[in-house]
């Protein structure tokens, strides 16, 4: 456990834990609404925020929170209007966010390609004390929203029209969810990088849902997977010089594949144990009184 003695490693692990919890906790709602790609879009837009931070000399994380929140709310508004050209509008936002970010970073005095790369792909060695504090505050907000409003957000993502008829403030909840997703992206960008954030929001959920039957259970299992891959990925990069973001995502995909391989036999066993057999006989038998109907005939 020598890695625990390094101050930068301690900070990296704290950040990894917070990200392992928050990314799947938000991602599950996006997956439920079949909007898994939204995290990617926010990541692109957040880059413009980071660059603005460099340009204006303010903290890039806070700036990324602001800009990506604005982007996420814009994406939510486009989605809510349900226009057919909606995906074109989203694509514009993706491209604009990424190209704007790259342009602005090159215009800023202390921006460089190295800086850009550390935000795009994540680099735990650059996580500062101040970053840990910011990440901690933001992560607390994300957990409060995703766990505290679970039933409400579940209802909205499950059946929006029904949720509106129950009188829930659906538009407000959607915007809260969009901003929470944006905050999560900025929380995670120092460790996984903006280009791979979305993977950590989606892959643990995709893995977990193959073994679960309920939403709460899927959320708990996805967070457990998230925590496992972010911490073990971070520790791995202490010993082997590889980028943390890519390591974590590859591990998450490994877990996904392992769970997929396990899922089929497990489901079969569970079905055999739990569900009472529909009929006493294992095979179908003809009812003697019933004659075959013409549709049963398979001759040509």
């Amino acid at each position, binding site marked *: 456990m020598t890695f625990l003695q390094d101050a930068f490693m301690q900070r990296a692990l704290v950040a990894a834990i917070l990200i392992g919890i928050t990314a799947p906790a938000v991602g*599950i709602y996006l*997956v*439920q*609404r*079949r909007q*898994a790609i939204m995290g990617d879009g926010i990541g692109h837009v957040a880059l413009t925020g980071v660059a603005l931070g460099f340009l204006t000399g303010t903290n890039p994380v806070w700036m990324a929170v602001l800009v990506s929140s604005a982007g996420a709310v814009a994406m939510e508004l486009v989605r809510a209007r349900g226009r057919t050209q909606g995906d074109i509008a989203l694509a514009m936002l993706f491209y604009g966010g990424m190209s704007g970010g790259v342009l602005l970073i090159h215009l800023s005095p202390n921006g460089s390609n190295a800086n850009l790369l550390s935000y795009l792909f994540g680099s735990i060695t650059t996580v500062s004390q101040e970053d840990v504090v910011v990440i901690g505050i933001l992560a607390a907000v994300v957990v409060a929203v995703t766990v505290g*409003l679970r*039933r*409400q957000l*579940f*209802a909205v*993502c*499950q*059946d929006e*029209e*029904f*949720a*509106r*008829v*129950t*009188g*829930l*403030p659906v538009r407000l909840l959607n915007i809260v969810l969009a901003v929470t997703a944006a905050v999560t992206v900025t929380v995670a960008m120092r460790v996984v990088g903006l280009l791979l954030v979305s993977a950590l929001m989606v892959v643990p*959920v995709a893995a977990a*849902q193959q073994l*679960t*039957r*309920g*939403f*709460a259970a*899927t959320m708990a299992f996805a967070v457990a997977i998230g925590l496992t891959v972010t911490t073990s990925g971070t520790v791995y990069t202490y010993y082997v010089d590889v980028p943390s973001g890519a390591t974590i995502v590859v591990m998450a995909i490994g877990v996904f594949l392992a769970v997929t391989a396990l899922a089929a036999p497990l489901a079969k066993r569970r079905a055999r144990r739990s569900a009472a057999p529909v009929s006493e006989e294992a095979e179908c038998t003809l009812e003697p009184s019933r004659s075959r109907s013409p549709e049963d005939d398979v001759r040509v």
Partner: protein
Amino acid sequence: MTALMPGPRAEQETSVEPTRNGSGEPVISLRGATASLGARRVLRGVDLGVERGEVVALLGANGSGKSTTVRAVVGQVPLSGGELSLFGTPYRRFRQWRRIGYVPQRTTAASGVPATVREVVSSGRLSRGRLRPLRRADRAAVDRALELVGLADRAKDSVNALSGGQHQRVLIARALAGEPELLIMDEPMAGVDLAGQQVLAGTLREEVAEGTTVLLVLHELGALEPLIDRAVVLRDGCVVHDGAPPPATGQHALPGHDHVHPHAPEEPIRTGLLT
């Protein structure tokens, strides 16, 4: 079948006049409603009134505007003209959504993440106490709703593992979980087998006996026939009949149901093999 279970209003079935079971207190009042979806005028002046305690069936062919009418009533389709009030309150000022239970027409799209039957049914309880955590009374109401539709033993199963008819029952239980005074259901019987329809008819009868008002879209009256007080038939976004339910057709035709209507409405669309 219907003859075996004469409802409380069986004696009304021979009457020609629209049977009225309402108290005169309007629960839904839609007047001259017009609405467009895309470029299409889907509602062209629909009048629909439902009084407290009534069970009203909304009938009509595919595309006649039944779902649009029902969605307009719950405020999910904006009206381009006409007036809507719920429980005597103009729609714009209406906030008491806990009084309404809504069963949307089932969409095939299951959600991206598994959810248990209980989780889905519980979301119907959000109409009471939107932002507070579940209390014991809420859990009891969810249990009761699951019992009512006969899915208590499947509570922990994923909704994705249910058949279409079972899924439909989950949506009904979700609406019942809020213990509403007004149930609005869009084709609640779609894909539900006869046994299931009987169960739901029994459930509905109990709810109605307790004073619940019901507006439901149907394609055939089926097992619900003895419960229906009045039928409103739509054609191309217009009301073409408002009064006694049309006579049952096909296998549901039973002696004693051959009452005459002044202007016979369109017969419900039958989807039998040979019709």
